[in-house]
């Protein structure tokens, strides 16, 4: 028996013994799950609490992180086996959130020993929830133009400014932020990546309402917030390097979230069935030939995109460096999702106009909101225009 097979056998036995029966078969999406943190409410869900504690104990919340930082110390192959075995029992992930996916990997790459020991175990145990402080009212696509000031106060910085689109800041315990430490340097060279405890005096959070209704987004204000210098990640004025590494990670995550959404049409089965429900059919064909054509186009685009994601994964598994195909993921994945939402509203017709209340079923109401929310897909995480600039410059080598 190979080491990997042995690991599979052990893991399967452990999951069988420790995965709470009530959670099996629940699966769980990446956005619905336990985010953890001091403000997390378990709502009497003792099974999920137990599941998190058991997984954290074994290092399964952050399987590939080193053991000394609360991880499982698993190889990528072992982590894949663990994911497969969890899927087999359809167990939900014990913990999700930006700590595991964003700041954790960043600290592993750029943090010092003290920072890793202080923060990583608390992330892995689900004790501390994180949010991201990047964009500002005056710094969107031109992120490096950010103006949140950090003034040297000896052993600490005094931070003042405003961050926007800080998702879930109202539930977060800590924020990782980009601040300007040198106002006189070239804009990318005066930025520092720093960790801030949200309970520090001077931090305040206001939720943002979107055109689609309530949202996880917030605006976070800093007014003379004192942050110890030991919270600087990497070097002072070298935050842009850290930020870029993290952004690349975010774009891949966004693309993957959209890439996996293809094919489903909600509770009415496939998109084709959903369209037939709204449009009716003649001799088995959708009654509206134009929408039929647009639906086929959308399904084919979705499929071609999924195949391209697969191509990138297969190439990576075969040991190739990421190819030019990966540069299209963010721009195409989001735009195909936006066309999908737009088409679903048009297919729903007048039933796609509901906001709330009687006369609209939950799926129709979701269609309206999802369409409105999707308009942000080509803006957040790097606009489509910025992505196209990146393709033109980095992939095609077109001159500035």
């Amino acid at each position, binding site marked *: 028996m190979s080491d990997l097979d042995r690991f599979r056998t052990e893991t399967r036995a452990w999951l069988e013994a420790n995965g709470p029966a009530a959670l099996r078969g629940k699966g769980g999406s990446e956005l619905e799950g336990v985010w953890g943190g001091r403000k997390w409410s378990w709502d009497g869900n003792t099974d999920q609490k137990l599941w998190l504690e058991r997984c954290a104990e074994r290092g399964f919340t952050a399987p590939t992180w080193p053991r000394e930082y609360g991880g499982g110390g698993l190889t990528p192959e072992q982590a894949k086996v663990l994911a497969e075995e969890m899927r087999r029992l359809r167990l939900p992930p014990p913990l999700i959130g930006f700590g595991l996916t964003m700041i954790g990997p960043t600290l592993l790459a750029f943090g010092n020993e003290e920072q890793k020991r202080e923060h990583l175990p608390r992330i892995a145990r689900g004790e501390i929830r994180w949010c991201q402080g990047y964009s500002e009212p005056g710094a969107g696509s031109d992120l490096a133009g950010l103006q949140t000031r950090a003034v040297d106060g000896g052993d600490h910085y005094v931070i003042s400014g405003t961050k926007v689109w800080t998702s879930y800041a109202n539930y977060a315990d800590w924020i990782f932020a980009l601040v300007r430490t040198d106002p006189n340097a070239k804009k990318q060279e005066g930025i520092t990546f720093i960790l801030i405890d949200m309970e520090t005096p001077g931090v305040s959070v206001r939720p943002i309402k979107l055109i689609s209704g309530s949202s996880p987004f917030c605006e976070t204000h800093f007014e003379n917030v004192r942050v110890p210098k030991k919270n600087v990640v990497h070097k002072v004025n070298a935050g842009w390097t850290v930020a870029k590494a993290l952004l690349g990670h975010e774009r891949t995550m966004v693309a993957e979230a959209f890439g996996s959404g293809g094919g489903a049409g909600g509770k009415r089965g496939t998109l084709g069935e959903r369209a037939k429900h709204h449009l009716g059919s003649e001799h088995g064909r959708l009654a509206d030939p134009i929408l039929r054509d647009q639906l086929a186009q959308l399904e084919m685009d979705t499929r071609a995109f999924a195949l391209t994601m697969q191509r990138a994964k297969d190439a990576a598994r075969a040991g190739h460096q990421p190819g030019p195909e990966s540069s299209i993921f963010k721009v195409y994945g989001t735009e195909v999702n936006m066309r999908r939402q737009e088409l679903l509203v048009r297919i729903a017709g007048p039933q796609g106009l509901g906001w709330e209340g009687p006369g609209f079923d939950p799926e129709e109401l979701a269609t309206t909101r999802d369409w409105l929310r999707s308009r942000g897909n080509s803006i957040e995480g790097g606009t489509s225009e910025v992505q196209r*600039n990146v393709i*033109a410059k980095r992939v095609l080598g077109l*001159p500035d």
Partner: protein
Amino acid sequence: MDLVLSEDQELIAKTTADFVKQKSPIARVRELRDTNDPVGFSRALWKEMAELGWVGIAFPESVGGAGLGFAELCVVLEELGRSLAPEPFLSTVLLAGQALLLSGDEAKTAAWLPGVCKGDTILALAQQEAKSRYDLASVETRAERAGAGFRLTGEKIQVLDGHLADAFVVAARTAGGPREAAGITLFLVPKGASGLAVTRQTRLDGRNAALVRLDGVGVGADAVLGGVDAGHALLARAVDRATVGLCAEMLGGMNQAFALTVAHLKTRMQFGVPIGTFQALKHRAANVFIELELAKSAVMAAARAVDRDDPDLAKGVSLTKARCSDAYVLAANEGVQMFGGVGMTDEYDIGFYMKRARAAELTFGDAAFHRARWATLAGY
């Protein structure tokens, strides 16, 4: 089914690319056209391609092939497509060749495919008619019983490489109405048969095509390929496979057209700067690039679907042909626009890609045709 080239496939790609560079520049296509070459491609190069194993790459070893698959064949076709090589893969290997192979008729495959693999035999599929457009069930050519055999009457259009073909696979109606799938039979008709008249046609892309008139052509019962009245399914399978091969050729062509365009954007100076500095052009170039990457994924997946006999192949074929049709036309149209005035001149090569893009788009169904087919296959 990994969507990545194996080391062996990488090697085939490199060998083909080197061959194209040395022996098949696009200037060759220009010369064939300008001299009104009676063959329309190079018999010598075709023979060389056969000796390199490319012509028979996806045919079984039992008929003289290499016993590999469409994954490998498509690698070859993509590289050849970059220089618009006009050699008769589509007619001989993909259309008539696949119809023969898929028929399972051992006598006929043994009689014809070894010659194909050696580069000696040219085959053609005589299917399309004046009214059929892309509908494979639309066949008006009649095959009437005559003694033990049949007598074929009708006219076929744009029969690829028809003026050189040593034999034709002819779709004719033995029963049913003019648009019914049932009642179509495929016949293998050798060149020179009495009553067979072949007239060469001239198309915008310079590829070989011919009108084929059948005026009571007599064939024996042993000329039937597959079963009597059961030719449609065989024809559809062969055309689906041929479409995958055509898409691989298109992929090579669109990528080369785009490479020429990007090179032009970097070197053409206007207003004192390279025009590639303009964001209006950068974003459009990025859009073309995105479409090319998506087309590539579809072609790779379709080739592998042929090789594992995927029951959902037809859907994958429609996905691939729709994407490649739109992407090739886009790359060519944007290419001519970005080249500007010189893009309109015959002297520049980009126009050759525009013509080939259009011809390939309108072969085996354009994007709209394949979206409709996808919708039908998906049950809406």
